C-alpha cells in the first residue's frame, strides 16, 4: 500500500505538467477542479470548451473520447456536463483520464457540440440530450436515442423526475 502511495505522489509530477500546460495556454479561462493520481478535471465555460478540447487533443494527445456524463444539481440550479477523454498515442499521458466539465444553467442548458473534435461523442451527447435535456448546438442528429418514441415526461435523469412510488 505504501509503495503504491509513493508511486502515486511521483506520478503527480506528470499531472502537474498537464495542468501547467493548460493554464499556460488558457490562464483564467480554465479552472482546475482537482488533480488526483491519473485523474485531472478542469471546469471551463461553454465559450471556451471547443478551444480546450482542440488543445488537449492536438497538443497533449488526449485523442480518445471515453464518456460524456451529465449530472443534475437542482440546488445550485445547474447541470454539469463532464467529458472524459483518454490518450492512445501519447505514451506519457496514456494512463490519464482528463475530464473537462461545463456548468450550464438548468433552465436553459445549451452548449456547443464537441462532435467536430471527437466524432465518438456523437451518441454520448445524444444520450445526454435525452436523459438530461441538454441541447448541443450544431450536433448532426440530436434526436431520441434510448427512450421510447412516445416519451412525454421530463428527461428521466433530472433529479425532479421520480420513479413512480419512490418519491421522497
Amino acid at each position, binding site marked *: 500500500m505504501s509503495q503504491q502511495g509513493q508511486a502515486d505522489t511521483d506520478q503527480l509530477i506528470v499531472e502537474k505538467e498537464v495542468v501547467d500546460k493548460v493554464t499556460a495556454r488558457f490562464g483564467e479561462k480554465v479552472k482546475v477542479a482537482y488533480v488526483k493520481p491519473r485523474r485531472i478535471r478542469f471546469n471551463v465555460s461553454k465559450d471556451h470548451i471547443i478551444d480546450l478540447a482542440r488543445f488537449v487533443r492536438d497538443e497533449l494527445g488526449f485523442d*480518445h473520447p471515453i*464518456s460524456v*456524463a451529465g*449530472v443534475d444539481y437542482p440546488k445550485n440550479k445547474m447541470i454539469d456536463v463532464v467529458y472524459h477523454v483518454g490518450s492512445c498515442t501519447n505514451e506519457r499521458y*496514456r494512463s490519464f483520464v482528463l475530464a473537462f466539465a461545463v456548468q450550464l444553467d438548468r433552465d436553459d442548458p445549451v452548449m456547443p457540440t464537441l462532435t467536430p473534435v471527437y466524432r465518438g461523442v456523437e451518441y*454520448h451527447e445524444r444520450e445526454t440530450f435525452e436523459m438530461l435535456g441538454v441541447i448541443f448546438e450544431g450536433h448532426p442528429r440530436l434526436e431520441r*436515442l434510448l427512450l421510447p418514441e412516445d416519451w412525454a415526461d421530463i428527461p428521466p435523469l433530472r433529479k425532479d423526475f421520480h420513479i413512480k412510488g419512490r418519491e421522497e
Partner: protein
Amino acid sequence: MGVEMGRERIPGFELEGRDEDGMDRGILTLSVGPQHPGSGHFRLIVKVDGDMIVEALPDPGYVHRGEEKMCEYRNYIQNIPHLERPMIADSCGILYPYVLAVEEICNIAVPERAKYIRVIMAEINRCIFELYWLGIYGIFLGHSTMFMWPMADRELLIDLAEMASGARVTHAYFVPGGVRNDLPDAFPEKAKRHLLYFKNRLKEYKDIFYDNPLFQARTVGVGILSKEDAINLGATGPVLRASGVEHDIRKVEPYDVYDELDFEVITMKEGDSFARAYVPWLEMYESVEIALQALEKMPSGPVRTKLGPNPKGAVGEAFKRVEAARGELAYYLVSDGNPKPYRVKLSVPSFREIPVMAHLLKGAKLADMPSIYWSMNYWPVEADR
C-alpha cells in the same frame, strides 16, 4: 422537401434522393431488426443503393431499463445485482469498475488474496464471454460447428465460475472490499485442469474456424477500420487493438494485481472483421495464462474487508476503468456523502462501438452487414443499460 405521411417512421428522418415527381432514385430504406436473425434486440436502419449501404443509422434502446436512475434509489451494496444484469455473459467484468469506484469513494482497503481472486474470475469471465460471442458469430455466418464448439467449452468455464460463486452466469461475486466468499478448497486444482484443457482446445479452433476458407471469405478485407478513425471514434477493446493501437487498460493503468502478472497486449494491423475476430482468440490464450499465474501466486488470507452497514461515501467523484471482455468499461460515480450514489454513469464498450459500426457500414455491401455488425462485439443489452 416535404415529407409524406407514413414515410417518416423515425422522427427527423426522411428519405433522400427523390426526384421532383416523387420517385426514388434507387435509394431504399431497410429496417433491420429488432426481430431479425442478423441483429439482436437492436434496430439498424440502412439505406441501400442497390447492394451498397449508403447510410446506416443505429437505433438502440430496445432494452433500456434505466439502470442509472435506479442506482440513485439504492445504496452501494444494493446496486450490485442489477448492475451486472446488462452483461451477464461477463458479469464480473461489468461489476469490476463499480466495485473499484465504490472502494475509492468509501475508502475501503482490499485484502491481497481478494485481488488475486478477482483477477482469476475476471479472466475466466472474459473467456466465457468471448466463447459465447464466437459461437453467435458462427451462427451469423452460417457456421453451426462454430456455435457448438465454443458453447460446449464455455460450460467447463461456467462450471468453475459456478463453483466459486454459486451461480451460473449472474455471480454478484465482487463486492466492495473484496469478494463475497472464499474459493472452495478444490477450486485451484479443478481450475488448472479445466484451463489447461481449454488451452489445448483453443488450438483446434484455429484449424476449424480461422483457417476455414469460408470464414475467411466472409471476413478478410471486410469493414476495414483505420487506426485514426478507431481512436477518434472512441473504439475500445479488440476493435481498437485489431486496428493496430496497443491500448489495454490492464497494461496502461494496472488495477488490482495486473502489474504483477506477465502477459502481452495483442494487436493486429489489418483492422478488418477477421482481425477483430482473431484478436479475441489470441486474447483467450493470454487470459488462460493470467489465470494460471494468478492461481500460482495467490496468497492465503482473508478475502473480504468487513464493512459497516450502509457504507457512506465521501463527497467527491471517482472515475474507474477496467478492461472488460469487450473493451474499456468505465464508471463515473458522484457521491454527495449519502449512502446512495448521487449519480452513476456507465460508459460501456458496446455503446461506444455504435458510431464505429455506423462508420464501417457506410459503403459496405449489404451482405457483409452481419459480419461487420457482430465483429463489433456489440451487445445490445449492455449498450442500452
